[in-house]
């Protein structure tokens, strides 16, 4: 990966997060929407209006309602492997690529849900990217887990299940490993290194480039 200045990255990431938590600003700005329309179709742009409407509808609701709304919205997107969509074995799409193309794999759902929930003001420390094994299929899988408190049972946001459930209800999933984006950001800030998580770092760089 191309080496970039760590301070710049941290600044951009901070600004990026700031834009998500600033509820008065739209989730996707107008300029980017026009670019998405130009590259894809007006329908793609329209999907972002629907997303904005969804997010606006729950912005003053409880975390659970926000989780449910976001999970439901993104689970409408079609599933497609990275090989099918991006001709790569494993690719983490930006939220704009995911919704513009209207197709993606499990990581893409998790990423989009994560940033949408960040926009809605959910504490990033409560959300984990969790690698799981599904008893229903053999491919590696990822879900977004939400911990209301560090010690309580997490809620699973999964693209294979339309509803959100507590972990104990998801007996089809076996947790393997999880990471918290906030912890990665803190580590990056402390070490002044942009290399904290290969795929995460790559994703942030693509988002900085506003890859659509």
């Amino acid at each position, binding site marked *: 990966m191309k080496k970039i200045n760590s301070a710049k990255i941290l600044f951009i990431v901070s600004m990026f997060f700031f834009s998500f938590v600033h509820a008065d600003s739209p989730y996707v700005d107008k300029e980017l929407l026009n670019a998405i329309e130009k590259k894809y179709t007006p329908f793609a742009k329209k999907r972002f209006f629907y997303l904005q409407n969804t997010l606006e509808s729950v912005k003053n609701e409880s975390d659970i309602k926000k989780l449910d709304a976001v999970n439901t919205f993104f689970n409408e997107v079609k599933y497609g492997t990275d090989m099918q969509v991006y001709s790569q074995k494993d690719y983490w799409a930006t939220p704009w690529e995911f919704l513009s193309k209207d197709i993606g794999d499990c990581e893409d759902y998790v990423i989009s849900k994560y940033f949408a929930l960040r926009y809605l003001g959910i504490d990033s420390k409560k959300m*984990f990217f969790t690698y799981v094994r599904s008893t229903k299929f053999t491919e590696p899988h990822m879900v977004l*887990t939400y*911990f209301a408190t*560090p*010690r309580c*049972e*997490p809620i699973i946001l999964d693209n294979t299940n339309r509803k959100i459930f507590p*972990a*104990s209800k998801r007996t089809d999933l076996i*947790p*393997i*490993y*999880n*990471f*918290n984006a906030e*912890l990665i950001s*803190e*580590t990056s800030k*402390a*070490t*002044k*290194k942009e*290399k*904290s998580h290969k795929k995460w770092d790559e994703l942030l760089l693509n988002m900085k480039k506003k890859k659509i």
Partner: protein
Amino acid sequence: MTLFKQIALIISIFLLVILMTVLTLNFMSANQAVQERLYSDAKNTATSLSLSLGTVNGDIAIMSTMINANFDSGNYLGISLVDTEDAIIYERKSETKSIDVPDWFLNIAKITAPVASANVSAGWSQVGILHVQSDTSYAYTQLYTIFKDLLVSFSLLALIGLSILSLLLAAVLKPLKRVQEQAEAVARNEFILQSSENIPHTKEFRDVVLGMNAMVKKVQAMFNKGNEELKRQKELEYIDPTTKLKNRKYLIDKLPEYLKIDASSKGGINMLIALGGVIQANEKIGHTAVDALFVDIANIFQAHASNYENFIVSRINATEFSILLPECSGEDALELAEGIFDAVNLSILACGLDIHETFLSIGLYEYNYEQTIAQLFTFSDNALSKAKLEKSHIHLEKANDTTEVMGKNAWREIINEALLTNRFHFVSWKAVDTKKRKIAHKVLSLILQTNKGKTYSYGQFMGPANQIGLSTSIYANVMHMMFKTPNIKLKNSLCSIRLSLEYLDSHETYKDLSQLLKEYAAKLPFRLIIEIPDKLARKNSELLKLYKILFEKYNIDTGIYEFIGESGDYQYLQELRPAYIKGETSYFLTQNSQTLSALRLITDTLGISLIATSVMDTNTLRELQMKDIHIIQGKATEMIELS
């Protein structure tokens, strides 16, 4: 500082700054790479260990063991597991250990091992966060090795770079060296022309060389013009146009060389010869035939005198001639005069003239070196007057016996004693630049102080020394004395010493001086000018060239004395480039303006000063100044108020 050094210094500094910058950037990059490697290792460990810890369902004992196993088998500064509320569950930290790198390096490298973190879960539950920090000691050692390698590489690079730079500069500035040599030669009044193949290709250098070549050609042309003019004037000044013999002026200018205390000859015969009956001869055979007769007579004189070294045959006026014969006795001179008389008579007869009407009268005067020119001419005239009255037309006038205070043996004893016991001492007087009112240089002379306390001046002892053949020994002795035990009072001054023809014109002297200068020249506390007689200088011999190289090597200037401008070519002045030329006051005063201008043109071109010697009074000084001669020696120097 030379241009080469300046450019080399600037480029070297520039090169070293670049190399140092690259070295620093390389080192910083290596430092960053090492730190990134430390973080990467820690991150890998954190991820893999957290995955392993996640499989033990939160069993603290197993987790501690797994952390211990990882910590002990790897290079870590610390591994810690904290729970979700930041309380430490288990922690391992490295004991402080010494690092095998110098302290200064630890201070400048400053490696900070970043802490990598990973979440640890037990099923869906969070156990906490695992923090891993790599050990820096190995990183320091690795970085120190990289630093040393970089330093060696860059030192070699710098060395090679500077060597190439030096070679390139030397090649680029090579033409400049020649330009510099030419410029220095111009400053020394030497005429060096760069040949066409030596004209540099660099435009600026080429322009400079072409400019200097043009200037040198002009100066050379000026010198040649002066040389030609002086030669032409010499012809007019010194040569009798009919007989091609030297004239009266030449004789007068030349006589001081014979009538001096350190003359190489103690004396001899001056023949004053008059041809009587010329008017009648002209009437009988005409001017042309009489002139032809004069030429015949001149040839007879030359032929008869040529057996004597340093003879002078000159035509004094229309009917009178002089033959100066150093080291010639009265008896020999009488015999010679008779031979001349007879030979000339035959020529007169051959012209159809009567030898009783047209005949020679020969006055012989036995002169010695202590006499003046006026005395020599007066006594010679007396001898001629008497000869005209005598039947044989030949008369020998003996010189008045000079009363010798001491005999030759007494002098030999005194001088030998003085040589053995170093009884010679230097005294000095001034050569003064009357225009600047400053001392031009100090003139060193000698005195002899006997062990009985009696002091003899140079004028007293050098004449006898010449006659007993000890003058060369005296010069050798005083030269050794001057270099080996120099007079500290003369420190930082400019001093001249006059060396005789006899002393200098010897390879033994050259060898002796070479050795002497090699050992002592650097220690001489004053600047020295060695004066060479014009007679030796104009020979332009190989020996003189050796002296020139020798003196230049030891930064000793040369001067010329007894100059009367009698050379057929003044190229030798260009070769020798003396600091000055010394001539008798009478010489300068009797030269016409064209001759002096031509001499000035030559000396000014070569940067040579003209110095008049034996200036005795202010009137003479004024006359010299009118002729643009401003540096003088003699009594008159005492009358000048120095600034």
